[in-house]
């Protein structure tokens, strides 16, 4: 297909309007295109990751009108008029979000590929429940797979965001010290 042909074809797609991280966006793409691909390919917001493409791993989690969704399962037409938040919209005035700070301090991110989704799921939890217990944290993150951390440090990071003294509740780790070692 020539460039002209594809340009003509693309004009056939209706405009879909929504906001991403507070910015109004309009895209003209196939309406069944996955929101994940629209974010990454059309809007160049590559912080949202694909892990499985079937809604199992949660790496593509974004928040849409106050719900946590797997953006690989959302055709972009469903986003018409929606307010979408991605990991790129988590910082406040250029400052790390408290969750981001806690993940950094408590080892909540290793390879980082699940991290954007994990942060969005955590943010969703804290929006709905400002003081979740460890059971609620585990439940809220059960749709987000992490292969590196064994989740323990992610639980700690979320707990530390709520209250620093809760951080040790996921597990307690002790580091035996000997004078010659330090």
């Amino acid at each position, binding site marked *: 297909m020539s460039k002209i042909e594809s340009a003509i074809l693309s004009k056939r797609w209706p405009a879909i309007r929504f906001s991403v991280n507070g910015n109004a966006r309009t895209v003209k793409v196939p309406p069944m295109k996955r929101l994940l691909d629209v974010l990454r390919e059309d809007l160049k917001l590559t912080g949202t990751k694909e892990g499985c493409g079937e809604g199992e791993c949660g790496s593509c989690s974004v928040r849409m009108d106050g719900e946590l969704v797997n953006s690989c399962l959302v055709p972009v037409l469903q986003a018409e008029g929606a307010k979408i938040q991605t990991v790129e919209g988590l910082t406040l005035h250029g400052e790390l979000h408290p969750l981001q700070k806690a993940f950094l301090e408590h080892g909540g991110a290793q390879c980082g590929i699940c991290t954007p989704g994990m942060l969005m799921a955590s943010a969703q939890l804290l929006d709905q429940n400002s003081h979740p217990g460890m059971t609620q944290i585990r439940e809220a993150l059960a749709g987000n797979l992490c292969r590196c951390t064994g989740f323990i440090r992610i639980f700690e990071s979320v707990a530390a965001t709520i209250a620093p003294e809760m951080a040790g509740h996921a597990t*307690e780790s*002790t580091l035996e010290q000997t004078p010659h070692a330090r």
Partner: protein
Amino acid sequence: MTFSLKKKSPRTEQAGALKLEKCSATRIVGAPVPRKEGVDKLLGRARYVDDMEREGMWHGATVRSSIPRGFIRSITFDRRVDWTEFAVVTAADIPGENCIQLIVADQPCLADGKVNHCEEAILLLAHPDKHKLREAVGAVRIENEPLPPIFTIEESERQDQVVWGVDNLLKSFLLEKGDVDSVWAGAAHIVEGEYRTGAQEHLYIENQGMIAEYSANDGVTVWGSLQCPYYVFKALRPVFDLPDEKVRVIQTETGGAFGGKEDFPSVLACHAALLAMKSGHPVKMVYDRMEDLAATTKRHPSRVRHRTALDRDGKLLAIEIDLATNGGAYATLSSTVLSRAVLHSTGPYLCPNVRVRAASWATNLVPYGAFRGFGAPQAIFAMERHMDEIAAALGIDPVELRRRNFLHTGDTNATEQEMREPVILDQLLDHALKESNYHAKRAQFARENPSGPIKRGLGLAAFYHGSGFTGSGEVYLNSQAGVDVTPEGKVRVLVSNTEFGQGTNTVLTQVAAEALRVDYSDVMMAAPDTGVVPNSGPTVASRTSMVVGRIIERACAQLLALLREHAGLGASYTQQEFLAACDRYRAEHGEVLSLCRYEAPPGIIWDDQKYHGEAYGAYAWAVYVAQVAVDTVTYSAEVEDFWAVQEVGRVIHPVMAAGQVEGGIAQGIGYALYEKVVWQDGRMANNQMTNYIMPTAEDVPPIHVHFEEIPFRYGGFGAKGIGELPHDGPAPAILNAIRDATGVAFNAIPLLPEDLYAGLAAAEPAEEMAAR
């Protein structure tokens, strides 16, 4: 912080008496500094390969074999697709050798006339629009003449079909110590057992991906998700018949690897680069999850047979092991995986007579490859499960049996390597028993179990893991690494070792900052680019902190000596004085650069023929305890609590070290109880995250991590290997706990509810089952 920093006296005395060298206080080593690339990852701006684009970039896809073995008779292209839009690559387009270079040159880059496993790559396609590729792949028809395949170790060793070499044997080893045959007749006890482990998928969350460019002038450049830039470099060279200076490999941010990006990226890099050459465009190839699961490497399945002789007191007299792995269709890393399995197969025990026969067998399955632990988890599962069966046969407590047979400082292991570094297994065991309240809980569960459907138990595993390449491997690698100081005043760590979550960037910059006595924030990693960094060896084998860290430490000391000698650096200095000295040195010598090569610790002598001598420079040691609940109504087994006590040398970064252990244990739990690769006629039938089940946030128990620290004098600031160790222990500890809970010996993993049902039903009389 989540760490309670306990001071402990008994060990101090013991370690003090050993006159360990590394005693100096450190500022940065041992501190939980922020992950070097952490902010980029948290902001979502870290660039993984699929986040990158190149000008004019096309997308690539692979046409694969649908049969496990046979001849390719014809390839036809459906006329409904306009093939002029596509670049098409077959084996005939390969300018150099059609071979993926690794250990044995047996694996073609693209199948040429014959296929040896399902999903073997036959043909490559590229197109500007990635959404057009799926249809095109389906429009290429491969006509085959099938040959009978073999899939199991047994079919391969019986030579039902010869599918590799003259006898299907990818590699074999024989390890002998003492005289096993002289022991059986006089032994008080002989215990035999057979243990099996299944395939395991890495399930890194970022699938395999690569971007390649090609030009006649510059040759091949690839960017990709990978562990070992120089492995990919060495694979590309012969395929394109190019000199070193025309091949360049750059690692992009890598979203998990676990060994799965040790060998396979060489295949994908060659494919993407062939398409780039043929199309004249940069080409990106990123697998989706189904393709990644179906077509890439996994952990070797194993079958391990033990025959053990003991004296009246439960002391080991002889261990005879027959160890077999399924290697899949090509040799890949099967020989070295088998080697590590052999060297870990007798566990951390003293035994005067040992014979291990090991073989890796070719089958018509997707080639198996590297995976965290690299053969050790298979061998240790068998040994540690077998120890509990010995304990049961002899009527000895499993703890006591292990204690009677532990290696101690000065003992020799199966390869007759003397344990010159301190061995503190008893201490680790005591600590694990105390933390888990082992004896009291076992007694409690024994009381409570008869009265309800939930049966609880505790199980343990004791093990060691050799750090770094085996035997003379590190000498052959001859790794080079170092530091330089840029005119902007930044110290750069020059290594080809890569970050894929485990903390390479952070740990190696900590080592350099500590050694140079500069700020952590002023040290950075040079780009993981073969055009920039020297070959410091692959990022595998738990070698980065210990082996490469040590080279960095030495290179820093060498740099300070240079600056003192030639640039007037004082004995103590401020950051500014250090940088001023660097400027003076640069003005004189052009650059501030210090590189060192690997130096083996003294006394490392290894006989590769006899499998005798110093198998590893150092061992990390551990005792793990699992608490398991078995539901005899649903037949599910759940790990309720987990304790991990280990000695890994100096802990360079306490939070990341704990994170490594916890992540490894979660993978080990999956290995034991959840993760089953279902094969159907040689294909993975459950190649989706929907039906290949890994532990989720709701499945992992609390994990209690404890480190004992005995600095290893030849490791970077005292470090030993840590990354693989935690995958070794969970599976045997969990199955031992299930035996404790149910009284039934389960000798194979993964142990799914249907397996539990079968085992428990077989063990119980039918009327009891009906009555319950």
